[in-house]
């Protein structure tokens, strides 16, 4: 059994209304050091198999096909076998 984590983030230049709102909320709580904030998604997966490069290839496919929208999002993954 392998465990994987996928991080989905908005591409640079794509406006993030949610991130902007959270940023404003932090500032209103007095956290003035926060310069910028963007909201993304984090997913944990359990995968069968032990071939790390094969699993990464498959997970990359999943990320491009469904987990992220390549028009507006980037993804990054970590696979532990």
């Amino acid at each position, binding site marked *: 059994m392998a465990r994987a984590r996928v991080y989905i983030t908005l591409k640079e230049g*794509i406006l993030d*209304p*949610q991130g902007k709102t959270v940023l404003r909320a932090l500032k209103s709580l007095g956290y003035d050091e926060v310069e910028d904030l963007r909201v993304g998604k984090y997913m944990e997966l359990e995968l069968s198999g032990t071939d790390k490069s094969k699993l990464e290839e498959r997970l990359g496919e999943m990320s491009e096909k*469904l987990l992220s*929208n390549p*028009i507006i999002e980037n993804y990054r993954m970590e696979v532990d076998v």
Partner: protein
Amino acid sequence: MRFGVVVFPGSNCDHDCHYVLGTVLGQDVDYVWHGSTNVSSFDCLVLPGGFAYGDYLRTGAVARFSPVMKAIEDFAASGRMVIGICNGFQILLEAGLLPGAMMRNVGLKFICKFVDVRVETTSTPWTSAASKGQVLKVPIAHNEGNYQVAPEVLEEMKRKGQVVLRYCSPEGAVSAEYNPNGAVESIAGICNAEGNVLGMMPHPERASEAELGSDDGLVIWRSLLSHCNV
């Protein structure tokens, strides 16, 4: 003309579309379940509004892999008519049948109200009965209507006349003040390069009878019917 209204788990404007097409406009209309793979008997498919698959992950992201979507891709490729309204538009974007993507509304609020949209081109099958610059009063009801597309793709779309509707003032002026959701260049509706696939955030089916506040949505349906010689 024979219409198919596609029903996904979570669609909620399917009955409105069926009613307007069948009862108001007197056309032949049937529901198409999302598991169906045969759409060959239809002239036009309607992807209605709602929250297909709960909008989980991203709006339309799961629905675009419904069995019916492959059939709809072939249907659209054959030049037949496809309209996606609101959630249906979002599904068409995820499926790649229309360019771009939807983000959350800039104000982070679900917006449900009448808006004015300006007809940017009358050269599409969906707007041929309108006059250029005509303002339509049609309601929106969405949380993710903030349309975004890469600048170079947008330029090409504009060159090919694919920007069909823009949010505007009641007089037809486009400005940030009348952009309800932050969509790039106030875009409310687009079509593909061929013109047979339309996506729009406003709901024409909710504005097809004067008793309900506006029948401006009829412009879309009547254009379509006239294009198909009905």
